[in-house]
């Protein structure tokens, strides 16, 4: 463990909550679940709520047409607000010292569906289809080309923990001095493969997802992009700790005891060198599936107790899969960035309020709830993925920034 500074120096994001910092923060703290939409096209014979990004996305620049796909458009939308900071980093450190570590679970597979559909009709793939559009590594290469970075660039894909894991590796590459700055985060796009795949697993909620409720019946899918400029500078908002684990249990269900989640949270606290009592807010993985919420609540209660304010923001944007760890770190970043003195306005837990007696009695954030923090504010975010891959991050901001 280096203990070296790791500054999340700038953030761009796009999700169902919007693209501008002001819009996203206002809707996040209001618990605005009105951004989800009901879709009846994607999965045969059923309708489902989705956290779709409905506003127009930037077009892929012509020289990068080989990478054209919705997933990369989400990444580009997340890059736009931080373009000046990223360009300044490339100029300051040199292109070879700027890396890219990004997560996705979909890459351009949504656009590959169109190519396969074209083949079904005509016998050949759409001729404008490139493998760069589809492959997982294409996201990192696209971001690197878009910003002119020539350092290491790779895509992490550990299902729903991809985004958190990307930030963990970006921090390590900076500490290793392999890079002076890394653009890191994730992008994940709604597509027929994930909507139909989760439908086949019986994992989708009939109504909007209702995490921690006795009435919860599954998750709501969404899409998002969130990219940070990560540097080795002190101050500002820091990525203080990372914890991660595997489950050795099942490909698509968590260990019911939450042992893997517990390890990730404990290791993140130890890595950050902070006590459990210092955590002011936990952004839960909180998918709204029966299995996730019961094991996560139990793990949170064991590691942090039942007083720490917790919420799932998935009822606002959906489960954005490979981007979840990054967009939820983005929400935590906003919460810290908008701190006023000792007051930390928290994203509410939006649900029906029907507490499940089978769940550990963790404290779920009410609308308008504000946490009081001391000289430094610390928050935690969890992401747990298929294949039994868990990642927890601890972010913090100090008065001395």
């Amino acid at each position, binding site marked *: 463990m280096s203990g070296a500074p790791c500054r999340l120096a700038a953030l761009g994001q796009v999700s169902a909550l919007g693209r501008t910092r002001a819009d996203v923060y206002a809707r996040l703290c209001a618990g605005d679940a009105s951004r989800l939409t009901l879709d009846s096209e994607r999965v045969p014979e059923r309708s489902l709520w989705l956290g779709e990004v409905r506003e127009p996305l930037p077009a892929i620049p012509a020289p990068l047409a080989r990478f054209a796909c919705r997933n990369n458009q989400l990444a580009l939308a997340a890059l736009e607000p931080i373009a000046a900071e990223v360009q300044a980093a490339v100029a300051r450190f040199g*292109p070879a010292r700027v890396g890219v570590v990004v997560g996705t679970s979909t890459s351009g597979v949504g656009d590959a569906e169109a190519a396969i559909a074209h083949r079904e009709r005509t016998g050949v793939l759409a001729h404008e289809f490139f493998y760069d559009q589809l492959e997982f590594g294409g996201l990192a290469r696209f971001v690197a080309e878009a910003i002119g970075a020539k*350092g290491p660039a790779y895509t992490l894909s550990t299902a729903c923990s991809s985004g958190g894991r990307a930030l*963990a590796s970006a921090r390590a590459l900076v500490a290793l001095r392999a890079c002076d700055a890394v653009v890191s985060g994730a992008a994940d796009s709604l597509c027929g493969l994930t909507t139909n795949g989760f439908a086949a697993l019986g994992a989708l909620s009939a109504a909007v997802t209702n995490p921690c409720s006795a009435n919860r019946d599954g998750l709501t899918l969404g899409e998002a992009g969130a990219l940070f400029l990560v540097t080795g500078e002190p101050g500002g908002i820091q990525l203080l700790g990372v914890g991660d684990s595997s489950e050795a249990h099942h490909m698509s269900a968590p260990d019911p005891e939450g042992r893997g989640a517990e390890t990730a949270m404990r290791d993140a606290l130890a890595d950050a060198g902070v006590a459990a009592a210092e955590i002011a807010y936990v952004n839960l993985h909180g998918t709204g599936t029966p299995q996730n919420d019961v094991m996560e609540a139990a793990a949170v209660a064991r590691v942090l107790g039942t007083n720490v304010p917790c919420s799932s923001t998935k009822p606002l944007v959906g489960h954005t899969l490979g981007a979840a760890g990054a967009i939820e770190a983005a929400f935590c970043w906003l919460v810290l960035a908008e701190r006023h003195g000792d007051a930390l306005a928290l994203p509410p837990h939006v649900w029906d309020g029907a507490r499940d007696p089978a769940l550990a009695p963790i404290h779920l954030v009410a609308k308008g709830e504000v946490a009081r923090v001391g000289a430094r504010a610390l928050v935690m975010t969890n992401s747990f993925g298929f294949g039994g*891959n868990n990642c927890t991050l601890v972010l913090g901001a100090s008065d001395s920034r």
Partner: protein
Amino acid sequence: MKASLLRWAAWAPGIDSSAAWEAWAKAPLPLPATGSPEAKFLPAMLRRRCTPLTRTMLSAAFACAEPAELAQLRTVFASRHGSINESIGLLENVVRREKLSPATFSHTVHNAQAGLFSIAAGNRAASSSLAAQEDTWTAAFLEALAFLERDPRAPVLVVVGDVPLAETFAPLVEEAAVPYAFAAQLAAPGAGPGVELELVPARDSAPAAAPWPPALEFLRWWLSGESQLEQRNRASVARWRKVDPG
């Protein structure tokens, strides 16, 4: 950027022992384009859920550590294509508006090999899965260094592998399309024979496909008497050097 390479293992059709790889490295020939290991070390229940890629990568992984280590090592799994061949069938289901197989869907995540390794080895340690086009092997090495930076006390098992792309996408990619996997235990410098990586940006466009995958070119070099290797990837040039321990 330095690490120790404590142990390695690799699998390709017909080349599945260290002696066979030593012989290949002395007189390397292009590798067979088809074949996959049986992976009999896996319980039958689990083996049934393994794709050819999973059996290939897990064969190299299990040959690269003692049973007790397999349950403890942090892991990096790297594959350019991952489970894309299995995803094609699911995409056809989607396009035809057919029901998807839930088991197939949950086994086509890019970290399927890592997940099944964790289950088979009883491993609860940190694990990463990645892809980086033609730069996948060097990215895997770097990701292992990232784990070592976070905790240098324990080695990391890095496993890289692929199988040839199915015909739907194969014409779109120029590469040595062979089934293979390479695994290495990497540790902090000083723990064993040393290897140093210097990455510099590539100056021109992508090179012609090499006769075998970059990870196996690395293995060929590691087993040779050559002190340095320069590998041209898509976006970077990897300069490898052997360094004395300590």
